[in-house]
C-alpha cells in the first residue's frame, strides 16, 4: 500500500486545536462576555426598547456623582504618585549600584501580592485622627496640638491606594527596563550625554509605552478597588463607585439591583476605555530590542549619592512596607487597642481564635478549595493557550487571549454583579450560592496573570527543542508532555500561585457572591474588621501575610530567583 493511502482526511472541526479553542471560547463567552453584555442590556433596554432612563436616574443622585468623582480623583492621583514613585525606584534598583538592590527589588515585588485591605487596616491604626499611633507619635515629637493626618479623607484614601498599587507600576516598568538593550544607553554616553541626559533622552522615551501602560494599570486597579475605600471610606463617609455598587446590591430590591447595574456599566466602560487606550498606545510601539550580546546591563555609578539614595529607599521601605505590616502584626496581639502595647496589654487570645473558631476555619477551607480549583483549572487553560499562541497558527487563537485580557481588566464588582444577574436561574443556569460561581469569578479575574507567565516561558523555549522531539517520533501531545512541560514547569508553578494567592484572600467578588455556606476568608476578615474585632481581623491578615512570604520564598527557591510573585 502506498504510504499516502494511510493518511485519513479529517474534517477541520474535528481538529484538536479547533476543538480546544472552541471549548475555551465557549467558556469565556458564557462567563465573561455574556454577563457583561447582559449588564449593558439591563441598563439600556427597557420595556420599550433603548432608553437612557436607568442610566440617567442613578446620576440624578448627588451621592453617585460624588462617588464617581471620588473614584476618578483618587485613582488619578494614585496613578500619578504611583508612577512617580515606581519609575525612579525601578531605575535605582535595576540600573544603579544602589546598596542592596536585589533585596529591595524582591521586597517591592513582594508587596504586589499583599491584599490591599491589609494596608487599609494598618493605616487606619496609624493615622486615625484621634488614636492613630503615628499621629500620636508625631504630635509628641513635634509638639503639635492636633493630629497632623486624618486617614478618613480623600488624601488618606489616595495615600493608601498609592502605597498598595505602586508595585503594579514597579513590576511593569522594571521588567521593561531589564529587557532594554543596555548598549542603547551606552551609545548615548559615548555620544557625549551625561548619565542624567541619557536617562532623559534615551531611557525615559524608550520606556514611555511601558510607563503609560503601568500608569493605566494603576489607575484602573485603584478605580476598581473595593477593599481600601470600604474600610477607610465608610467611616469617613467617602463613597466610591465600587462601594456604591455593593451598597445598592445589599439593598436587595429590584431597583437597587438596577441602580447597581447602571453604576457597574459606567465602571466597566471606564475600564474598557483604559484597556483600549493602553493597547492602542503600547501596541504600536514595541520598542523592546532583542540584543545579540550585552546581557550584563551597565550599572550607573551613583558616586557620592549612593549612600543618601540608599537611605532614602530604606526610609521609603520602612514607611510603606515595614510600618504597616508591623502595625497589623502588633494589633493582632494587643488586648486593648486604646492603650499602647506592653506586657500588661499583650494577648495571644486572637491567635487562639484564629485556629479554633469554626467560622474562621470553615471560611479558610472554602477559600482554599475555591482558590485551588480556580488556579488548577486556570493553569490547564493557560498551558493550552500558551501552546496555541506560541506554537500554532490555528485560526482564532487570538480570540481567547483577547477575552481573557478583557475579563481580567474588568473590575471585580462588575464581574461578580454580572454573574449574579445571569447565573442565578434566569437563563437556565443556577450556580448562585455555590462555590462554583466563586471559582468562575476568580478564574475570569485572575486567569490572565497565570497565562502570561506561561506564555512568556514558552516564548523563551526555542521551537527547535520540540521539533527535535517530533522528528524523533513523538506526536505533539507527547512533545508537550516530554519536552515543553518539564521546561516550563517552574513557570506553571509560579502561574498557579499567581492565580491562587489573590483568589485565596479575595474580598470584592466574594462580598457579592457569598452565601451562608460559602463565605470566604477575605469576607470573614472584612466582617471582623468592620463589625467585631480589629484584632481578630489583624490576626487573619498577619496569617495571610505570612502565607504570602512563605509562598514567595518557595517560588524564589523553586525557580532560582526568576519568579517571585
Amino acid at each position: 500500500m502506498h504510504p499516502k493511502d494511510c493518511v485519513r482526511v479529517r474534517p477541520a472541526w474535528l481538529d484538536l486545536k479547533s476543538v480546544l479553542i472552541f471549548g475555551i471560547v465557549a467558556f469565556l463567552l458564557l462567563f465573561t462576555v455574556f454577563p457583561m453584555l447582559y449588564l449593558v442590556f439591563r441598563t439600556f433596554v427597557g420595556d420599550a426598547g433603548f432608553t437612557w432612563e436607568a442610566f440617567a436616574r442613578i446620576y440624578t443622585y448627588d451621592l453617585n456623582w460624588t462617588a464617581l468623582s471620588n473614584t476618578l480623583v483618587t485613582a488619578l492621583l494614585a496613578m500619578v504618585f504611583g508612577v512617580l514613585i515606581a519609575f525612579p525606584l525601578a531605575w535605582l534598583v535595576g540600573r544603579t549600584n544602589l546598596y542592596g538592590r536585589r533585596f529591595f527589588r524582591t521586597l517591592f515585588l513582594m508587596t504586589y501580592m499583599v491584599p490591599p485591605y491589609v494596608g487599609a487596616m494598618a493605616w487606619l491604626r496609624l493615622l486615625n485622627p484621634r488614636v492613630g499611633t503615628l499621629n500620636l507619635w508625631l504630635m509628641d515629637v513635634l509638639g503639635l496640638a492636633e493630629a497632623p493626618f486624618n486617614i478618613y479623607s480623600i488624601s488618606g484614601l489616595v495615600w493608601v491606594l498609592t502605597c498598595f498599587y505602586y508595585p503594579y507600576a514597579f513590576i511593569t516598568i522594571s521588567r521593561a527596563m531589564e529587557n532594554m538593550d543596555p548598549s542603547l544607553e551606552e551609545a548615548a554616553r559615548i555620544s557625549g550625554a551625561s548619565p542624567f541626559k541619557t536617562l532623559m533622552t534615551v531611557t525615559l522615551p524608550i520606556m514611555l509605552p511601558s510607563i503609560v501602560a503601568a500608569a493605566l494599570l494603576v489607575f484602573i486597579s485603584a478605580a476598581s478597588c473595593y477593599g481600601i475605600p470600604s474600610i477607610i471610606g465608610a467611616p469617613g463617609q467617602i463613597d466610591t463607585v465600587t462601594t456604591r455598587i455593593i451598597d445598592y446590591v445589599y439593598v436587595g430590591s429590584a431597583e437597587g439591583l438596577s441602580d447597581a447595574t447602571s453604576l457597574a456599566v459606567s465602571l466597566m466602560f471606564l475600564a474598557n476605555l483604559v484597556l483600549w487606550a493602553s493597547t492602542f498606545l503600547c501596541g504600536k510601539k514595541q520598542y523592546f530590542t532583542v540584543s545579540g550580546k550585552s546581557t550584563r546591563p551597565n550599572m550607573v555609578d551613583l558616586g557620592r549619592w549612593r549612600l543618601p539614595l540608599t537611605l532614602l529607599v530604606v526610609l521609603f521601605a520602612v514607611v510603606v512596607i515595614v510600618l504597616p505590616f508591623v502595625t497589623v502584626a502588633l494589633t493582632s496581639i494587643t488586648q486593648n487597642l486604646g492603650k499602647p502595647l506592653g506586657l500588661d496589654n499583650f494577648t495571644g487570645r486572637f491567635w487562639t481564635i484564629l485556629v479554633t473558631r469554626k467560622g474562621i476555619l470553615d471560611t479558610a477551607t472554602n477559600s482554599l478549595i475555591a482558590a485551588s480549583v480556580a488556579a488548577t483549572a486556570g493553569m490547564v487553560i493557560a498551558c493550552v493557550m500558551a501552546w496555541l499562541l506560541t506554537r500554532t497558527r490555528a485560526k482564532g487563537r487570538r480570540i481567547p487571549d483577547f477575552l481573557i485580557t478583557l475579563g481580567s481588566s474588568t473590575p471585580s464588582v462588575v464581574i461578580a454583579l454580572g454573574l449574579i444577574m445571569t447565573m442565578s436561574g434566569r437563563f437556565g443556569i443556577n450556580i448562585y450560592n455555590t462555590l462554583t460561581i466563586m471559582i468562575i469569578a476568580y478564574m475570569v479575574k485572575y486567569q490572565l496573570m497565570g497565562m502570561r507567565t506561561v506564555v512568556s516561558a514558552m516564548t523563551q523555549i526555542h521551537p527547535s527543542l520540540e521539533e527535535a522531539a517530533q522528528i524523533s517520533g513523538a506526536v505533539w501531545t507527547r512533545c508537550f508532555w516530554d519536552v515543553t512541560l518539564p521546561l516550563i514547569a517552574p513557570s506553571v508553578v509560579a502561574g498557579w500561585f499567581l492565580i491562587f494567592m489573590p483568589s485565596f484572600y479575595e474580598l470584592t467578588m466574594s462580598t457579592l457572591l457569598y452565601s451562608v455556606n460559602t463565605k470566604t476568608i477575605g469576607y470573614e476578615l472584612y466582617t471582623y474588621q468592620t463589625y467585631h474585632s480589629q484584632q481578630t481581623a489583624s490576626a487573619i491578615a498577619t496569617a495571610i501575610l505570612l502565607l504570602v512570604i512563605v509562598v514567595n520564598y518557595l517560588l524564589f527557591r523553586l525557580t532560582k530567583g526568576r519568579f517571585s510573585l
Partner: protein
Amino acid sequence: MSSISLAHVSKWYGQVCVVEDFNCVFQHQEFVTLLGPSGCGKTTLLRMIAGFEKPSSGSISIGERIVSGPKSFVAPEERGIGMVFQSYAVWPHMNVFENVSYPLKIRRVEAAARAKRVEEILEVMGLADFGQRMPNELSGGQQQRVALGRALASSSQVLLLDEPLSNLDAKLRESMRFEIKEMQKRFGLTVIYVTHDQTEAMAMSDRVIVLKDGRIQQVDSPSTLYRAPANVFVAGFVGKISCLPAQAVAGKIVFSGGQSLAYTGEKRGSVLLAIRPENIRLRLDQGILPGVLTHAQYLGDITDVRVAVPVSDSETTHVRLTAPGRSVDQIAPGTSVWLDFDDYLIFDREEEASITI
C-alpha cells in the same frame, strides 16, 4: 593627535583575570584590530578604552590626556570618541536623522550646521533618503550604517567598533568591510576594531593584535602575522595549519617515520612543524611524507583534502591541504599518496605546550 596608549592595563572580575598587563600604543590614524576567540578579553579592552569599564590597574590615555589612571577617570561622554555597537544600538524612538544628529545636539552644535553635517554623513553612508525613517523600517545593513553614521557625526578622531559586522549576512559583511576602511581613510580616523573573524582583521587592519586569555600573543601587520606567526595558536587562528611532531638536528628535520628534510634554522630538539594547506602539494609518485588520502571535498575553485599521516606507531595526524580545481577527482579515498612541501613553520614543542590548549 589622536593616538591611544594603554600602559600595564589589567582587568579582574573578582578572582578571574580577563586582561593581563596589556601594553600597546595605537598610532594616530592607524587601523588596529583586536582579534581573538570569545572570552579573550578583546571586548573588555574596547569597553575600557570607551570608559564603560574601569581597569583594575594601569592607565589609558587618548592623545595627551589620561582618561583612566590610578587617580583619574574620565566618563565615556567626556572622552570624545565614536563607537559602533554589536547590536547597533540605534535608538528605536528616534528616526535616522535624529539618531545621527544626537552627538551634535549634545555638543550644542547650532541647528543649521547640525542639519548640514547630518545630511553630509547620510549622503556618505548612502542613507540620503532615509532621514525620516524609523529604525524598525530599516534592514539590518541600514541600521548598521546609521550606527556608523552616528559614530562619525561628531567628527571625533577615534572610532571604536565592537564586532560591528557579526549580525550581518556574508555578502553585506564583505561590502561593509570596504566601506569601513573607506571611511577610515576619508576621515583620517584612529580605529580600534574588535572581531573574532580573521578575514575582517586581515582585510582592514594596519596592525592586528592577537589575544588569548587576556594576553597579547602577537602584534604585527596582517601579512607578517600570516607569514611569521609567533606561535601555533596565532598560526592556527590567522589562517589554517596542520601540525606534525618532529626532531630538529643540525641541518635537518627528522620525522618519526625516519623521513627528513633540509633545515637551516636555529631550533633544536622536539619541534612542531606547521604547514598551511595551500603550501602542500599532493603527489602519487614521491614526496617528503607518505600518507593515505581520507577525504576530498570539491568546493569549486579548490578541493579540500585530508591526508592521514602516521606520526608514531599507533597515531596518525590528519593533514589538510587544498588542491586546485578537480585535480584530485581521480584519487579514491584510501589511496596511498605523498605530501610535498617546502614552505613551513617550525615551533618549539615545549614552548608551545605552555601556550596551546
